């Protein structure tokens, strides 16, 4: 029988970024979407980080730090160190930092360079 592969659309799978520390710093009850250009992708433990340059209302670029779960957690959901690269145009939904800093806890990635990404989850 053909092995069935399970494809998880990350946009449909809310992921909690918190895995090694308290999640008090994020406003988990709220989500917002940022659109911008990836400056840096840190494929590291205990957390994976996506730095995104986002234009504010005044047209000035600001750097947002998006905290994801761990390499271990995301690798099993089909991510790799090549999932994002500098220069990628992205749309990401996050739960913002409660202190108002430019950052948040990763929820979903809606688009990478215009395409809806698909990731192969590990059973």
């Amino acid at each position: 029988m053909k092995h069935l592969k399970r494809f998880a659309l990350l946009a449909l799978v809310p992921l909690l970024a918190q895995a090694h520390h308290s999640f008090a710093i994020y406003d988990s009850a709220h989500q917002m979407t940022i659109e911008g250009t990836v400056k840096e992708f840190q494929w590291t433990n205990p957390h994976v980080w996506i730095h995104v340059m986002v234009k504010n209302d005044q047209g000035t670029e600001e750097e947002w730090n998006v905290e994801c779960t761990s390499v271990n957690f995301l690798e099993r959901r089909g991510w790799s160190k090549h999932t994002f690269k500098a220069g990628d145009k992205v749309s990401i939904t996050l739960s913002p930092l409660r202190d108002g800093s430019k950052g948040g806890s990763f929820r979903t990635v809606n688009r990478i360079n215009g395409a809806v990404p698909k990731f192969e989850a590990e059973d």
Partner: protein
Amino acid sequence: MNQPFTSRRWLLPALFTSAWLQLAAAATPTLGPLYADPAHADLSGLWLVSGGFYFAPDRSVPKLLGEYKTTYARRTEAFNKGIAIDDLTADCLPAGMPHLLTVPYPFELMQTPGRVTFLYEYDSVVRRVPTDGSAVKPDPDKATYHGNSWGHWEGDTLVVETVNVRPDTQLDFTGIPHSDALHITERWHRKDAKTLENTITLTDPTAFAEPFTTTRTYQLKPKWKIAEYVCEENNRNARDEQGHTSGGAPARK
């Protein structure tokens, strides 16, 4: 007339075939438990907790006493303001016991005669649980993050006792405190082929008005492998001068 199967004509080839099959069986590992102890129920395998980040899936909390009640109220108040305090894990220190039982990373349960070993992906922690009749005397002077454990079997249930846990660890990420008098009892059994159930009872006469019990389940992940997890690799959440968990502003050098 048909030759009987046991005639001399078949005997030699049959013996060869039998010997070859035995060799083949010895050379090919049998699929099944990797580390089972044949004397006991098989709980071995790679397991992942279900039911979320809170120590109890229903988010209930032990009935806290005195200063422990005050401490938790202070942590909850800060938490609700977006501030995490007293959180050792922000500095990559261990979650400790019993928090380790609910971290969202898999562990491998390995059974050998006289011992059960829990091999955790999270922080690469190892818990060695002797089941040879030995026990540990409570001694607050010897407290560690994960304490000292020992166990025994009651039928198909593995019972693990743990004492000597450091009082600065918390039950979960909401900051539920305990004292150095904490005694953890885990009752592990295989609910079905793919599910382990662990009924956890916490007794802490110093911090809790009464024993607290919750049940956690774990799903079998036969295709997974334990991976490396080094928290110090790029930790951007270390506590600041006020002891608050950082939001990760400084980028990796």
